[in-house]
């Protein structure tokens, strides 16, 4: 049926469309101008991958449909896909109403069927979403009236669509004629309820109601969190394409005068866009180990604090570039203790359906606290001073760094310049007694497989990871440059790290300073050596071993499978998963982000919660294996505090391998 806009109708519709879209674009323009207050940042590298992400994450809803959010993920996807299909129809509706033009395919039976089915699917999804909000009230989701208004509008759009489609069918019905199969199923059934004579009137009424709702939606949308329907498109496109574990580099640091973020102008435009895109769904908060254990940090609040300040202070700054913002963001909104509680575990980043980058904002604010104000927590300052003076956060004597290996006869690079691999031991395995055993296991395993390697001993210094994550970019750069210089001196090309923090920093961050190496985590290498038959692992005792995912191996670098493959390759070991907190939902041990060096006085200790999760699976596991020295320290402390050290023993996967080597 043609649009009911004969005569003046078309002009009226045109006026309404101008008002509706005017309302939308006026607000969009305001928001765009506010975005320009942020500092510049180039996010146009790797365009092909950006397009791929757009298809997978935006169109494919990949980050929505995942555990444990199956139901809300699928209902959201249905509403979203419905929105896409119906928007095409809406565009056609408006064009036809004003100009009489028609978009291709809109009258085809296929499109009518899809439209019809999606209208019903969307209605069902809206009903589920409303029910969840009203009765299930998911914790940490911001349940506000806005959400209901939007859902109601969507439902009304679908109802009016179905009714005017049915009325159109009813209006031209030939009573003697059998309905054509080409007609959309739901509308053609509903059409029986509408008398043929009433068809045109009902059609016109619901058609106008539908169009008015679309236009109201356009005006309302950019003034609410539902703006994400629009902003997710650029937010996904401009997401970080560098490794997740790589923090931004402060270039030319010696000649800069201000560092980090203390006001909205210090964030990049993309970080501000993150704020527009947040849907307040609360998935980041849901997965945050700090929030879960009673800290004041809430990753969602960090994003919203920035957005709220932008919307509040931004217009003033646009009018007068020199205007003062209210005190820096972290004074009024994000407080230092929230920022210091972050372990940079990336559970929030992983959980976010719209690719918001929480860690970078937190570290930027930490950079301001540390570099500008010198106000990191005192214990963190002690760790940094130790790194500065002794090259390790423990403050152990630099020259004793290689002592653990003395009786093993491990060569240093100075002694064996033609070694294929550098084993970058790291501070923990060099100085912490428990982790020295892991380093010894690494040596045993590498020797058994005939790998040519050497260490740097006292020439190695801290990779800088804790300093960088505490916000001390300067200390990180000096440490990294020192290591890069040493590695250059010996022509190092391949690096093995048994610590995921060393691994992540050397692999993902040293390239920022010109240090490019082929870096493997020891477990990746061991997996390869087993597959290639170069390493034989024999049968030891039969035991169940739970695997704990280190954040900087798993979420930050996607190394989930190799450590598991190594465990599975050990005869007698039965691998156990710490469900549901495993793989990409692995729960932090509490040591990342420099937290290893800070006190944890508020709430429950993160590592104690981890031990509770481990005990809750009731798997009969007698060991919990990890691939990170800091996880090992935290797990050891945790089992001790919980009094279960006799039941379950924390180990490194490498120790299990070393204990069963076949010579």
């Amino acid at each position: 049926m043609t649009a009911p806009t004969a005569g003046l109708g078309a002009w009226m519709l045109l006026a309404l469309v101008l008002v509706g879209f005017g309302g939308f674009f006026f607000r969009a323009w305001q928001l765009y101008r506010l975005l320009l207050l942020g500092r510049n940042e180039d996010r146009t590298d790797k365009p092909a991958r950006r397009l791929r992400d757009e298809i997978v994450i935006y169109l494919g809803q990949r980050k929505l449909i995942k555990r444990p959010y199956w139901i809300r993920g699928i209902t959201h996807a249905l509403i979203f896909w419905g929105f896409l299909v119906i928007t095409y129809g809406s565009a056609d509706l408006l064009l036809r109403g004003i100009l009489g033009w028609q978009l291709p395919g809109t009258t085809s039976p296929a499109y009518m069927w899809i439209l019809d089915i999606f209208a019903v699917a969307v209605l069902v999804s809206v009903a589920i979403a409303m029910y969840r909000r009203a009765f299930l009230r998911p914790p940490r989701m911001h349940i506000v009236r806005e959400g209901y208004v939007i859902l109601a509008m969507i439902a009304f759009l679908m109802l009016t669509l179905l009714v005017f489609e049915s009325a159109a069918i009813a209006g031209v019905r030939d009573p003697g004629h059998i309905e054509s199969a080409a007609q959309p199923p739901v509308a053609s059934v509903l059409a029986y309820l509408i008398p043929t004579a009433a068809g045109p009137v009902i059609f016109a009424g619901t058609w106008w109601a539908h169009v008015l709702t679309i236009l109201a939606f356009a005006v309302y949308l950019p003034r609410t969190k539902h703006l994400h329907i629009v902003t997710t498109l650029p937010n996904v496109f401009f997401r970080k394409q560098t490794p997740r574990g790589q923090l931004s580099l402060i270039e030319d640091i010696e000649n800069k005068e201000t560092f980090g973020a203390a006001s909205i102008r210090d964030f990049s435009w993309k970080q501000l866009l993150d704020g527009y895109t947040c849907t307040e769904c609360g998935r980041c908060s849901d997965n945050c180990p700090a929030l879960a254990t009673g800290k004041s940090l809430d990753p969602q609040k960090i994003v919203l604090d920035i957005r709220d300040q932008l919307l509040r202070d931004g217009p003033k700054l646009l009018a007068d570039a020199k205007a003062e913002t209210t005190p820096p963001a972290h004074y009024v909104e994000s407080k230092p203790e929230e920022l210091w509680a972050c372990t940079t575990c990336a559970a929030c980043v992983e959980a976010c359906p719209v690719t918001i980058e929480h860690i970078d904002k937190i570290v930027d604010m930490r950079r301001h606290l540390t570099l500008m104000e010198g106000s990191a927590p005192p214990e963190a300052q002690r760790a940094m001073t130790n790194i500065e003076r002794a090259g390790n956060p423990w403050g152990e004597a630099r020259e004793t760094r290689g002592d653990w290996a003395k009786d093993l006869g491990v060569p240093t690079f100075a002694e064996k310049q033609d070694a294929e691999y550098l084993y970058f031991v790291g501070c923990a395995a060099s100085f912490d007694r428990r982790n020295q055993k892991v380093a010894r296991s690494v040596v045993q395993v590498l020797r058994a497989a005939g790998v040519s390697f050497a260490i740097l001993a006292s020439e190695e210094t801290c990779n800088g990871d804790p300093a960088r994550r505490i916000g001390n970019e300067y200390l990180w750069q000096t440490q990294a440059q020192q290591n890069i210089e040493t590695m250059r001196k010996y022509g190092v090309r391949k690096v093995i790290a048994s610590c995921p923090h060393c691994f992540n920093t050397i692999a993902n961050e040293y390239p920022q300073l010109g240090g490019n190496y082929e870096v493997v985590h020891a477990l990746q290498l061991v997996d390869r050596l087993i597959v290639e038959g170069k390493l034989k692992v024999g049968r030891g005792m039969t035991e169940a071993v739970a695997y704990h995912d280190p954040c900087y191996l798993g979420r930050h670098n996607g190394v989930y499978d190799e450590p598991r493959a190594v465990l599975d390759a050990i005869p007698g070991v039965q691998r156990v998963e710490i469900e549901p907190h495993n793989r990409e939902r692995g729960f932090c041990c509490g040591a990342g982000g420099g937290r290893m060096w800070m006190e944890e006085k508020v709430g429950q200790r993160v590592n104690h919660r981890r031990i509770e999760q481990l005990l809750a699976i009731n798997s009969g596991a007698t060991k919990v294996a990890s691939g990170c020295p800091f996880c090992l320290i935290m797990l050891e402390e945790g089992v001790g505090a919980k009094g279960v050290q006799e039941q379950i023993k924390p180990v490194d996967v490498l120790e299990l391998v070393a204990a069963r080597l076949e010579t």
Partner: protein
Amino acid sequence: MKILIPLKQVPDSTVRVKVAPDGTSIVTEGISWSISPYDEYAIEMALERKDADPTTVVAVVTVGAARSRDALRQALAMGCDEASLITADTAAPLAVARALAKVVDETKPDLVLCGKQASDDDQGFVGPALAELLGWAHVATITKVVPVEGGVELWREVEGGHEVWKAPLPALATVHKSEKEPRYPSLPGIMKAKKKEIPEKALSALGIDASGPTWTILSMEPPPVRGGGKILKDGDAKQIAEQLATALRDEAKVL
């Protein structure tokens, strides 16, 4: 108020000290150096005054080798306003105090804060000697300084409480600890400190003889290596207790 802090650069506490072949000194090649910890507390204490009253001027001075300049830069990075260096490769403690007395005469501080002792030789000599040379009031091992009408209150920690002394200015105190841990320098602070001029004078140019009454080190040796612990686990509680008592009496000789 102007506060002067004489500081000393010492081997960093993370350095594993080795005795040099001559048997009377330590190996200083390739080790890292820092401000003696009690001097750092004195700096922090002075900077806390400066935080409370921005008109406070905090100056640091050291008598030492050319490398001591790094320690002065560290102090500037923490927030001190001025620094000066008196170079002397070796100087008797009394000569150091005499040189500092000249600096005090020249710069006229209201308050001199010294660390209670340097962490290398632990003599605790220079602070009191300087007060003596200047004829100033001296309070040792303070933990807090509070400006009051007509001088300063100097707090000392004593068993179960505090002693509060009042001294007219100028005065000298040696510092045991500051209220907060010594601050971590901000990066702009570090950069500014790098560019700051540090005037330098030779000890001899001040007309001071570097020798003087001092001690002579006869020999130096590392402490004996500590043996590992011993775990008693054979037998029941009673037997183990007996073994422990025997060990404490015969081996450790503490009973």
